[in-house]
């Protein structure tokens, strides 16, 4: 084995650091290796002869896809990540981020030890402490911040005084188990800054958020989705092997010329936020020319006649849409006719992305209905629901706290003349992040929320209006952050608990539904470095510290609990003459307390190791062999030994064709009515249009001299989570703002010039990339750059953070953040 000097030094440092444990280390160098801003790009590996080589099957966590990987471990060092071909979802591939996962493990800036804040909030000054001291600080606070016990006592055991929030991941479930046991009603996750509107709109229209069978579709409309850059497996692999006249015709609709546009057969530049008009016009053509699948519609649609009448009466013609969308009427006619000619093997791709515009929910409804008109639902080459392999259950804990209040939602009877909530119509489990944050800042909460637990989540970078998020974190009296990296959010924490990276832990086993369903497991590749721990161990340690003291607080304030403790085991006996006597309690006080405490024992869900929990969940359904297969291969499904085989050096068979779950519901939607729901009267009660219609307020509009700010993803980074990855940074050193070449020339802006981007919310300075791939009245830059945490050597002040300038505009149905509704000014600096 040959390892470059810098890495060897780093690894040796690891050992040394854990030995010197208790010696004095100043607050500033706790995060990084010696030279914080030494930007030498020299960390690379080369494999060679090692004494011991192990190949361990695991799952990637560089983004949300969870692709299967095989880690090569040479003498205890991970030297290479290769694709694991056995997983039907990721089909023998690892993207650039998957390959760069080694650098997440060996990032010198990783959080290494538990920390508690000693400076001002947000200043980033911390003291290294032991795990026990960190847990103690969470429970009882320090001179700088109050602990959970004090806050809960003052709030009389209202558990909802703590917010729990988490980023997406396989272990989110483990953290959420603490949330349930703790008893708060305030849970927030990525959904309202991610796929809330698309998932929900397909949910209410088709009964589920479907997958697309891009392996067999012959015609694909990909609008506002960028699968060549925002990789989703298996969609990305399936789609682009067949475009360009090779079996699948791909129509890309996007304001920008993306890599997906480059791989498409046709690209149509649409005005941002006007896709709904485009879909309504497609629908108009199909309805007026009677191109839809009449049998399918007759059998599987609810409210078709009303919707047809609405679309026809409103005259959503291609000529009407051309003015709104900037897509030629003739193209709209052609696409509508082609789509229906190829249907049911035609897909209007649902996509998986943030909400861009305020009409996103209605857009997704219109797309789902349009798909249904061709009959391409629950069928090969169309949208599919797929099959899911069930897993066994495992124990959770949900005590009833009488004092805990309901979710902090601002309900309003007068909201637009109907019942509902003040900032959105529907509140889901994932909540509305920016709605919640803004209510909290504006003191519109029904009770005080004073602390938060934040797992693998970076609100400072992940949601619009960074300034407000900073205010929220400062106002929060106790912030506990669990993370692998010293992110911008971690800088605002009072207690920092360092989680190990995905290569150092086994995560909850998961089931992956689809045409080719399977179960997969992230297996630990190497032991956790430094003093980091997997989330389940952190939950175990934390709950062992806080469970009993918090129970005492409940005892003090919770009358139901007091009653139960006093009277458990008591029986009332009513004698024949009507007198009631009570038996003496059959249990001692201690026995009663033990029995009641068992219902409130927060440590209970975390007693077993993740490996034990996984084995139990799998073995109870599929037997011991399945457990062994998951430990060895990372992947299991029934009959895998018979079905799985190599077809070529690149391709594998997972299921024979006749075993694939293209159709699981007889071609019908999965709504309770088993029909495509065109007209949802119950939405009207909440002030939401029951059918997708166009409104004047949706028009694309940019004041003269300003630009619509677009944001997006690409294949080399995942949001802010990978911003400090040295290998990925090697591929793309920073983000640039796309500005139309002719406009840039007019304004004297050349490639690499620094420009200030200014909105109502804030400003960022970023380098310019003049290009014809964007319209003259729009600008774009990639999300995830511009971190402000000095503890991130390579990400610190590298490029611009889009959320500094994106305004916090709340989508009205689910309270999602509308990311493409901000106009900005640009000025060369």
């Amino acid at each position: 084995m040959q390892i470059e000097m810098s890495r060897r030094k780093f690894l040796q440092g690891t050992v040394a650091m854990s030995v010197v444990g208790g010696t004095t280390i100043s607050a500033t160098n706790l995060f990084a290796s010696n030279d914080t801003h030494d930007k030498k790009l020299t960390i690379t590996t080369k494999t060679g002869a090692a004494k011991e080589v192990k190949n361990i099957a695991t799952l990637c966590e560089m983004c949300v896809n969870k692709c299967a990987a095989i880690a090569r471990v040479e003498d205890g060092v991970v030297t290479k990540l290769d694709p694991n071909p056995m997983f039907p979802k990721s089909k023998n591939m690892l993207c650039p981020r998957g390959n760069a996962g080694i650098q997440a493990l060996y990032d010198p800036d990783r959080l290494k030890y538990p920390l508690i804040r000693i400076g001002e909030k947000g200043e980033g000054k911390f003291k290294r402490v032991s795990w026990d001291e960190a847990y103690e600080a969470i429970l009882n606070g320090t001179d700088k911040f109050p602990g959970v016990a004090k806050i809960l006592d003052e709030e009389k055991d209202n558990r909802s005084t703590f917010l729990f929030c988490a980023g997406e991941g396989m272990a989110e479930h483990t953290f959420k188990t603490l949330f349930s046991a703790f008893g708060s009603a305030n849970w927030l996750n990525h959904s309202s800054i991610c796929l809330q509107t698309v998932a929900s709109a397909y949910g209410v229209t088709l009964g589920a958020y479907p997958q697309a069978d891009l392996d067999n579709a012959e015609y694909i409309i990909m609008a506002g989705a960028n699968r060549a850059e925002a990789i989703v497996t298996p969609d990305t692999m399936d789609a682009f092997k067949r475009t360009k006249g090779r079996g699948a015709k791909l129509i890309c609709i996007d304001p920008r010329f993306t890599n997906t546009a480059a791989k498409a057969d046709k690209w149509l530049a649409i005005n941002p936020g006007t896709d709904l008009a485009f879909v309504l016009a497609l629908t108009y053509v199909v309805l007026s020319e009677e191109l839809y699948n009449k049998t399918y519609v007759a059998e599987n649609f609810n409210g078709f006649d009303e919707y047809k009448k609405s679309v026809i009466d409103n005259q959503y013609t291609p000529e009407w849409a051309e003015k709104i969308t900037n897509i030629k009427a003739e193209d709209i006619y052609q696409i509508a006719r082609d789509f229906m000619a190829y249907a049911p093997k035609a897909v209007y791709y649902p996509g998986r992305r943030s909400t861009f515009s305020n009409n996103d929910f209605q857009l997704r409804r219109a797309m789902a209905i349009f798909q249904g008109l061709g009959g391409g639902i629950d069928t090969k080459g169309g949208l599919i629901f797929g099959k899911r392999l069930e897993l066994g259950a495992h124990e959770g804990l949900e005590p009833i706290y009488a004092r805990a209040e309901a979710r902090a939602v601002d309900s309003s009877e007068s909201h637009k003349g109907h019942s509902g909530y003040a900032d959105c119509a529907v509140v889901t489990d994932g909540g509305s992040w920016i709605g919640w944050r803004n209510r909290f800042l504006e003191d519109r909460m029904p009770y005080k929320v004073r602390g938060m637990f934040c797992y693998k989540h970076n609100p400072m970078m992940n949601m619009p209006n960074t300034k407000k998020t900073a205010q929220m974190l400062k106002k929060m009296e106790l912030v506990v952050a669990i993370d692998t990296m010293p992110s911008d959010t971690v800088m605002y924490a009072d207690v920092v608990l360092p989680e190990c990276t995905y290569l150092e832990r086994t995560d909850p086993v998961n089931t992956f539904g689809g045409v080719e369903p399977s179960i997969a497991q992230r297996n630990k590749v190497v032991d956790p470095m430094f003093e980091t721990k997997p989330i389940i161990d952190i939950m175990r340690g934390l709950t062992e510290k806080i469970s009993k003291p918090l129970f005492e607080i409940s005892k003090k304030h919770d009358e139901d609990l007091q009653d139960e403790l006093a009277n458990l085991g008591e029986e009332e006996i009513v004698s024949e003459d009507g007198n009631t006597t009570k038996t003496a309690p059959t249990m001692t006080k201690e026995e009663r307390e033990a029995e009641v405490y068992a219902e409130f024992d927060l440590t209970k869900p975390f007693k077993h190791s993740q490996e034990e929990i996984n084995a139990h969940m799998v073995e109870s359904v599929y037997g011991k062999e399945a457990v062994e297969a998951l430990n060895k291969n990372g992947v299991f499904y029934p009959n895998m030994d018979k079905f799985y085989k190599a077809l070529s050096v690149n391709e594998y068979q997972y299921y024979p064709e006749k075993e694939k779950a293209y159709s699981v519901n007889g071609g019908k939607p999965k709504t309770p009515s088993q029909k495509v729901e065109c007209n949802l009267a119950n939405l009207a009660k909440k002030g939401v249009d029951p059918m997708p219609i166009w409104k004047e307020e949706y028009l694309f509009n940019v004041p003269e001299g300003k630009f619509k700010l677009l944001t997006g993803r690409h294949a080399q980074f995942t949001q802010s989570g990978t911003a400090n990855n040295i290998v990925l940074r090697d591929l793309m050193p920073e983000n640039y703002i796309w500005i139309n070449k002719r406009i840039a020339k007019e304004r004297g802006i050349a490639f690499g010039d620094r420009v200030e981007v200014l909105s109502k919310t804030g400003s960022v300075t970023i380098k310019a990339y003049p290009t014809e791939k964007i319209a003259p009245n729009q600008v774009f830059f990639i999300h995830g750059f511009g971190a402000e945490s000095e503890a991130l050597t390579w990400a610190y002040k590298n490029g611009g953070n889009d959320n500094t300038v994106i305004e916090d505009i709340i989508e009205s149905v689910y309270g999602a953040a509308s990311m493409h509704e901000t106009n900005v000014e640009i000025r060369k600096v």
Partner: protein
Amino acid sequence: MARYGMALDYKNCINCKACEVACKEENGILMGADKHRIWVGVKEIEGEYPFLSIVSSSFEPSQCQHCDDAPCQEVCPTNATYYDENGVVRVNAEKCILCSYCMNACPYDARYVDDRTMTVDKCNFCSDTRLARGETTTACQNTCPTKVRTFGDLDDPNSEISELLRTREHFSLKSHLGTKPKLFYLT
């Protein structure tokens, strides 16, 4: 003994650069945009928004062509560049004196300087890493999401690459130079 070559279904390429990272991680290549054995060529798009030419914006994955008649080998004064037993064009770092004749001679710009050894480096089809361990694929092929590459023995009529080249139309880069590349682009 084999004669290794590679077929590239280049229209599959989405320019994600997984191959570049896999190559760097597998072969211990230095960081830095100018240090690479493998790359994806991108052209500036033609036209004015929204009238852009999709065909002008193709992605061209490339690396050393492992020419049967390699100009780099011909000009090397110390025989540092040589053909190994599998027809792979290799560099012997011990013999390289960094005269850089090979870098100038290569029509494909496939060579760069490794600052650690101060010698010229280039793609070697993972000969000293993956192939030496008994693997049958290169790192770039193995990791590719859209499976652009098929690596194999051109002399073996049963190999997948031989079958591909018999059944799919293909071209070589700068074939007029007579270098006889062993990278084949499938159309």
